[in-house]
């Protein structure tokens, strides 16, 4: 009977056969990375893609992706990707960054890349903390969030207000697509994938800088069970980091 | 005499806690001690270990060359550290999950179903059961020191766990 069944889900092409996902249980990175791989495969661009890894829990892209990958120093992935794209304009180039990387140490690089309208795609996983180093507060941590460096919850008097990455980037004229999505339910995952797909289509069409911020769970940093972490996204994080498409030139200029 | 102990297992098995409690107990007894955790790639790979030294004299090197005691909570731990044990060393292995059989004949083994013992206690903790067992078998530190270290460390970490810790310790000690 099995032969009559259709495969409705499989591991996407751009993964290594013996891949190794170095993430904690319930970590949002896993889903986002799979969505990227699915999009690359669907758009038939994975064989001409060069990925830029950044510093954070995602750093070891080469442990699972069967892609060409260059690693950037902390915060500098947009620059590295710029160098790649300018020297190989016919390739598809993306950066994969955390919020610590893209919005804390590396916002300047991100912003200027957006201003330049660099024709690359950036996927930024915002888990509102520094996962890799042990769950410290990052620029995007929401008020009240308990982290390793805000043990009584983020207090704006002491540690200021959260940075809103997508809002800031959509203010840059060179940005052609800016969206904030989240990973907390199958529905939200479908929307996230659609945004990621647009961000790559944007690059294929040469429209300029495309940016997708994905709110995703870091159960370890948040000290929550994985399923609770998804609730936290839905009920808390997205109240501060509002989901939506902030800019979309793919429609108007396609 | 300087004694060196390696404790190794899965990330979640509490081997680092075992180590710090042991070091704390040694300090309570006025001994010198050092504790070094593993961190980095290994921990990300789901494994953890720590090295403890205990001595009456100043401890120069905190790094263990060949350990006098090995506490191994899973196969990977056995695999990795068995070969680095000193001649005549004692290995305590958690035979509840370790499948590998002892391979050295110049080392003494106590392969015990520590996991089963822990599961037998309400909220039993594998690492503390093992700690109790280790203290009893080696008498490297006194039971009182072990208990007051446990108390100190539990208070710091999570006072609610103290009872569970003591129950586990006693169960292991009696094993």
């Amino acid at each position, binding site marked *: 009977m099995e032969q009559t069944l259709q495969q409705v889900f499989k591991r996407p092409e751009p993964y290594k056969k013996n891949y190794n996902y170095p993430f904690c249980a319930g970590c949002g990175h896993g889903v986002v990375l799979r969505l990227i791989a699915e999009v690359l495969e669907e758009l038939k661009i994975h064989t001409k893609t060069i990925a830029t890894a950044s*510093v954070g829990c995602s*750093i070891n892209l080469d442990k699972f992706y069967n892609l060409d990958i260059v*690693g950037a*120093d*902390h*915060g500098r992935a947009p620059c590295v990707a710029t160098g790649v794209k300018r020297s190989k304009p016919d390739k598809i180039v993306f950066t994969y960054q955390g919020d610590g990387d893209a919005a*804390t*140490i590396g*916002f300047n690089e991100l912003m200027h890349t957006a201003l330049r309208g660099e024709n690359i795609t950036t996927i930024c996983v915002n888990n509102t903390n*520094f996962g*890799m*180093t*042990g769950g*410290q*507060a990052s*620029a995007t941590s929401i008020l009240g969030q308990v982290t*390793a*460096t*805000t*043990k009584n919850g983020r207090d704006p008097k*002491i*540690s200021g207000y959260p940075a809103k990455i997508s809002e800031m980037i959509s203010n840059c004229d060179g940005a052609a697509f800016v969206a904030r999505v989240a990973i907390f339910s199958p529905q939200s995952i479908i929307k996230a994938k659609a945004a990621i797909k647009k961000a790559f289509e944007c690059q294929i069409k040469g429209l300029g800088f495309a940016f997708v911020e994905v709110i995703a769970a870091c159960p370890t940093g948040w000290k929550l069970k994985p399923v609770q972490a998804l609730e936290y996204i839905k009920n808390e994080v997205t109240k501060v980091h509002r989901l939506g498409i902030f800019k979309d030139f793919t429609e108007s200029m396609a | 005499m300087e004694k060196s102990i390696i404790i190794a297992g899965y990330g979640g098995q509490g081997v680092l806690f075992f180590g*710090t409690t042991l*070091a*704390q107990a040694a*300090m309570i007894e006025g001994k*010198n*001690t*050092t*504790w*070094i*955790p593993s*961190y*980095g*790639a290994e921990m990300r790979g789901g494994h953890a270990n720590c090295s403890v030294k205990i001595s009456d004299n100043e*401890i*120069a*090197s*905190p*790094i*263990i*060359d*060949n350990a006098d005691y090995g506490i191994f909570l899973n196969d990977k731990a056995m695999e990795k550290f068995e070969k680095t044990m000193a001649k005549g060393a004692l290995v305590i292995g958690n035979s509840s999950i370790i499948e590998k059989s002892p391979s050295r004949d110049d080392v003494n083994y106590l392969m015990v179903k520590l996991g089963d013992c822990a599961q037998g206690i309400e909220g039993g903790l594998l690492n503390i059961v093992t700690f109790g067992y280790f203290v009893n078998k080696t008498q490297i530190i006194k039971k009182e020191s072990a208990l007051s270290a446990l108390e100190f460390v539990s208070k710091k970490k999570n006072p609610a766990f103290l009872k569970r810790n003591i129950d586990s310790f006693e169960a292991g000690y009696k094993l």
Partner: protein
Amino acid sequence: MSKILMKGNEAIAQAAINAGCQCYFGYPITPQNEIGEYMSSKMIEIGRTYISAESELAAVNMLIGAGSTGTLAMTSSSSCAIALMQEAISSMATAEIPGVIISVMRAGPGLGDITPSQADYFQSVKGGGNGDYRTIVLAPSTISEAVLLTQKSFYLAMKYRNPTMLLADGILGQMMEPVEMPEGNAFSTVNTDEWALDGTGEGAQKRDGRSLMSLHMGDDILERLNHRIFKKYAQIEEKEVMYENYLCDDADIIITAFGTVARVAKSAVNAAREKGIKVGLFRPITLWPFPSKELFATAKNKKCVLDIELNMGQMIQDVKIALNGSVPVEFFGKTGGAIINSSEIYNKILELSKEKQYGTNLAASI
């Protein structure tokens, strides 16, 4: 003072607090995260400043700001992120602004690995900043010493108005051992009235504006400044050198090593001595000022110096410059986060004594 069991990183943080550190600025990086995390609760608790800076560039420049007012302040970080601070460290030295930088080395180069290493000797001691300047660099080898040297870092930074670095490795940061924690500062406080910024003041306090700059354009202004600062450096070299000399007097072989590795070497020296091999340990505690004269005097007429480092050979350059060809220098090191244990050093000593036939009663004893 009773002892407490503490992680090196936390002991350093507490020592800084006790020394009177008013501001901590930092950005996480393994293997020193415990420093920032400790500070994030303790400093706020006692009404001092903790800032989770947006980067190490930001942190070290906040340090400059606090230092410019004569305030005790520190930042901490590791390897690749200390590399990011090089411009600021050089600027601090030029503007003569004090500040303490805790550097807990991990393996390099690049992002490398988070395992322990000593491969940032060049970075710390030779300086990756531009121009002629020096950073005071202290290298503890036990947690108790780290506590003392942390406090001393504040003292030296203030006294000489110079960036001062405590250089530890991942092991020292991550390990625990019982430590005596001095209640307050083990060093006297330094008066900053003559130079610190606090506004030009009113009435009788009124004075002319002061400036602390790292830019000095025009004619020979910078040349004169550099010469003045180098006089200060000469003073530091004269007064502040620290080192440990362990069983060197009658030794044939002198091991040079710093930090954790020196501890490991000490175990090996003890083991070798038990076998009758005459070996001693010379441990620089200040990496700059490097104890050149002292090493030269110690190693004079010895058979050989064996330099041991957790890198491909960095301090060895200063060892060679100090010895100026007077004694042969051998090297044993590991790189990339690999660790050296005392048997390896012991074997190296043995090899050396056999090969070169150092040590008179050697043949007999082995």
